[in-house]
Each structure stands twice: as structure tokens, then as C-alpha cells.
């Protein structure tokens, strides 16, 4: 879960990295050595969260957005 949150945090803070995730989730999952379950979360609900972010997330909003997406991931991972 920590690796998934790390990916999400980067994607919130950097639009270029976000695009790499949005259009290459499987590649990102491989590079971060995610488990099958984590990869499925990334390419499903986490991608949906990242797709809905503003472009770019304003610097002042980054910590709050990262915390919100991390909470979503923790919630998903608890199932």
C-alpha cells in the first residue's frame, strides 16, 4: 500500500508523472513492483481519482489532495 500511495502522491504533485500513470499504469505497476492486487487498484479506482484531479493541482492544494487520495487508497486496501 505504501508504494501505491507513493505513486499517487507523485501523480498529484506532478502532471507529467500523472500522465505516465494514466496512460501506462501497467508499466508503472511493474516498475514499482506492485502486487497484483495493488496493480488492479492502480489501474482501476486510483486511476479514476487521478483522472479527476485539476491540471495542475495548485501547489498550495497538493498536501490536501495527497492526503485525500491516500485515504481513498487506504480505504480500498482495507477490503
Amino acid at each position, binding site marked *: 500500500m505504501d508504494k501505491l500511495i507513493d505513486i499517487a502522491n507523485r501523480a498529484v504533485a*506532478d*502532471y*507529467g*508523472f*500523472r*500522465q*505516465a500513470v*494514466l*496512460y*501506462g499504469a501497467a*508499466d*508503472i505497476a511493474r*516498475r*514499482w513492483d506492485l502486487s497484483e492486487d495493488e496493480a488492479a487498484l492502480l489501474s482501476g479506482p486510483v486511476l479514476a481519482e487521478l483522472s479527476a484531479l485539476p*491540471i*495542475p493541482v*495548485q*501547489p498550495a492544494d497538493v498536501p490536501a489532495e495527497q492526503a485525500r487520495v491516500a485515504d481513498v487508497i487506504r480505504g480500498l486496501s482495507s477490503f
Partner: protein
Amino acid sequence: MTGRLEDKVAIVTGGASGIGRAICQRFGREGAKVVVADRNIAGAEETLTLMDATPENASMVDVNISDSVQVERMVNGAVTKFGRLDILINGAAILIRTPPLVEVDEVLWDLTMDTNVKGVFLCCKYAIPAMTANGGGSIVNISSMSGVRGVGYSVPYAVSKAGVIHLTTVAASQYTSQGVRINCIAPGGVDTPQMRGSTASAEAFAGRNEGHPMGRVGTADEIANLVLWLASDEASYVSGSTYIIDGGAWAGAQ
């Protein structure tokens, strides 16, 4: 002037947005048959719509350019559908902001190099034989002023774009004699979704205009104009060159 690429067949990687999309649209207006290549399928479909494309003059392909199997399939698909390949525009790239070199994560370095350098290498590797089989062609690689200057906001991006410039030089030295002209452009700031997204805030983006000799960054259409010329037969004596297109910003900085 229209018809400058009449009946030419072109692959444009990164055609789903920004500079790549502008190139696709311009090439379409100039009579080329265009393959819009990107991983962003929704964006590629939108490009086709903006081009008023028909199946006879354009198509799209979902491709990860760092995967040789997919790149070979892309090139073979273009040749199968349109009968030849005349032009390759290597526009696909990623820009991930990084801290200074010592703090750059290896995974971000690899990710950037795989797309921005290996991707261009693979596209050239598979496109050049398709071009030489038909008498030659033209390749235009999209680098960046980040590959010329020591721009600090992304170490891997800057180095990758410098790599694209030198890949152009080396490839041109090897294939110009076989009829394949290979050139490169290095745009400065251009108003694209990528640039807006990678600039920290709207205020910071506005600041880029204010600090520019022309009072503005470039447009994707202005970049497409140069790419069109390099791709066309009008540039028949041009190969192995890199063209800075930044509205005088680099000249003013020296």
C-alpha cells in the same frame, strides 16, 4: 499553400495532444495520410475528429514506444494500411519534474529514458527500413531547449532531450546516403496541455510569457509549421540538423 505532403504517409507519435496533435492536423491539411500514434486513445480519437479524418486518410494506433514489439507493429500497420511510409515524427515524450541530480530517483530516470530516448530509437529502428524500401523518407525528432540548455527542473528530461539531438546526428550520418533525411527541432516554451500542467501555477505560466522576448511562449501550430517544412520535399537538402524554435529566447539569454 496546400498539398505540400500530398500522398505522403506519416506516423506521428504523441499525436493525441499538444504539438503532436497540431502536426497531425497540419499534415492532414497538406494532404498526408496520417497515423496518430499514442497511448492516450481518447486523445488520439479526438485528434482524428479535429482532422475531419476518414479511414482513407488517417488512422490511430495505441502504442507504447518503449516496447519494440508494439513499435514494429505500428510501422508494419502503417505500411499495410497505406502502402508505404514516408514520414516519421517522433513527438511522444514524458516530462517529470525532479529535484537536483543527487536526489533523482532511479525509477524516474529509467522511465524517462525509456520513453524519450529508447522510444525514439525504436521508432527510427523500425521506420528507417520501411522508408529505404521505398526510396527514402524524412524523420523529424522533437527535442527541447531543455536538451540544449542546462535547464534544472527535470534532470532526466533534459538529458533525454540532449540524447534525442545526438541520436538525430548519428542516425543522419548513417542513413542520409540511403535517402532518409533525419532532423531535429528544439522548441522552447510552447503553450500545450503538457506545459500548462507542468508549470506550477497559472501565475507561473503567465510569468513565462512576461519573461519572453516576444512577450509570449510559442503555439503548437508554430512548431508544426517548422516540422511541416522539414518533413516536406522543400527541405530536400536538410539532414542531420537541429533547429531551435523558441522565439529568440535562447539568443536573448546568451
